[in-house]
């Protein structure tokens, strides 16, 4: 009972603070600071990317994104360590019914299309809303569909492990190429490749390459997390 009262008091405090915040927000009427700077630079086609959010994430704030990918990698590693496979299998409880023919055929038919849609999302990250993280999540959702439809479905750990490691390695390598080819303060610069025609698929220098690598890395990482969490139900 006393716990409930304390919770209620705490939540009322939050309501009070949020009420003050909502009442005193000054509506933005113009871009200022970094936002304005990034918008003007993109208007001058400095990086050749149509999507300004992508330009910020992949190039202007590329180091932060590298850190973000590292956080995701460390979380995936932690999950793999915690759920390390043991010799002893988990007790499955009651015997489950096999998946029906329709479910199996339907899911194997849909999964490649979902993966292609994920690839489409991360290849067009510099032109339309989307990018590596979103595309990777879509790819992982295809793997999730296969896991759900077929309880005995297994992913190839070698392929996934190598794909993840190589894409992470290539991402850092592209960052270092910027240092070597352009200048000492150009880590992860996308202008190591030609900027191309503004608005076409092969434009914006290294941004599509970097987003492809991020998409592959995030997709395989999330798929491995799902695989670890699924466990072995034999």
């Amino acid at each position, binding site marked *: 009972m006393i716990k409930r009262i304390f*919770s209620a008091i705490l939540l009322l405090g939050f309501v009070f603070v949020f009420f003050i915040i*909502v009442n005193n927000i000054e509506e*933005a009427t113009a871009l200022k600071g970094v*936002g*304005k700077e990034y918008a003007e630079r993109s*208007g001058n086609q400095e990086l050749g990317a149509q999507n300004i959010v992508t330009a910020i994430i992949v190039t202007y704030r590329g180091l932060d994104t590298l850190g973000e990918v590292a*956080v*995701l990698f*460390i979380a995936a590693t932690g999950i793999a360590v915690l759920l390390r496979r043991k010799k002893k299998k988990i007790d499955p409880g009651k015997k489950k019914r096999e998946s029906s023919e329709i479910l199996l055929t339907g899911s194997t038919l849909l999964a490649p299309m979902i993966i292609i849609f994920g690839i489409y999302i991360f290849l067009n990250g510099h032109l339309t809303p989307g990018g590596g*993280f979103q595309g990777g999540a879509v790819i992982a959702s295809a793997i999730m569909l296969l896991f759900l439809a077929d309880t005995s479905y297994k992913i190839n750990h070698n392929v996934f492990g190598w794909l993840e490691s190589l894409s992470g390695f290539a991402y850092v390598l592209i960052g270092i190429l910027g240092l070597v080819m352009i200048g000492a303060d150009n880590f992860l610069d996308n202008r190591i490749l030609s900027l191309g025609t503004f608005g076409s698929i092969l434009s914006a220098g290294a941004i599509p390459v970097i987003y492809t690598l991020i998409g592959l890395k995030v997709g395989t990482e999330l798929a491995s997390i799902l695989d670890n969490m699924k466990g072995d139900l034999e």
Partner: protein
Amino acid sequence: MNITTIVHIIGFALIIIGFWGMLTQKNMIKIILGLAIVETGVQLVMVSFGFIEGRTAPILDSAVELSKVSSLIVDPVPQALVLTAIVIGVAVNALMLTFVIRLYQQKRSLSINDYKELKW
């Protein structure tokens, strides 16, 4: 009442619902879901700070004239920040759920009341 205020109110309401869930629920999965709801609320509030009435998305297609970009688009920086926040949120939630799986394998219980080792 304009659109920004409505989105702010929804976001803050989600934060409060999430905190209520974390404080009152006993099931550990529900506690984690509470934190996920708080994250959603925070992201909604953050992204709405960059909204400017009557402007378009920060994508330089035919709707945006390149010479006066900064007077036609909404602020792209909060959107980039929220994308990062979502990804980190997914990683944190997955790790927490993993801890719950391990705890359940040890004690076969999801109730927070059965884990008193860290209580003082």
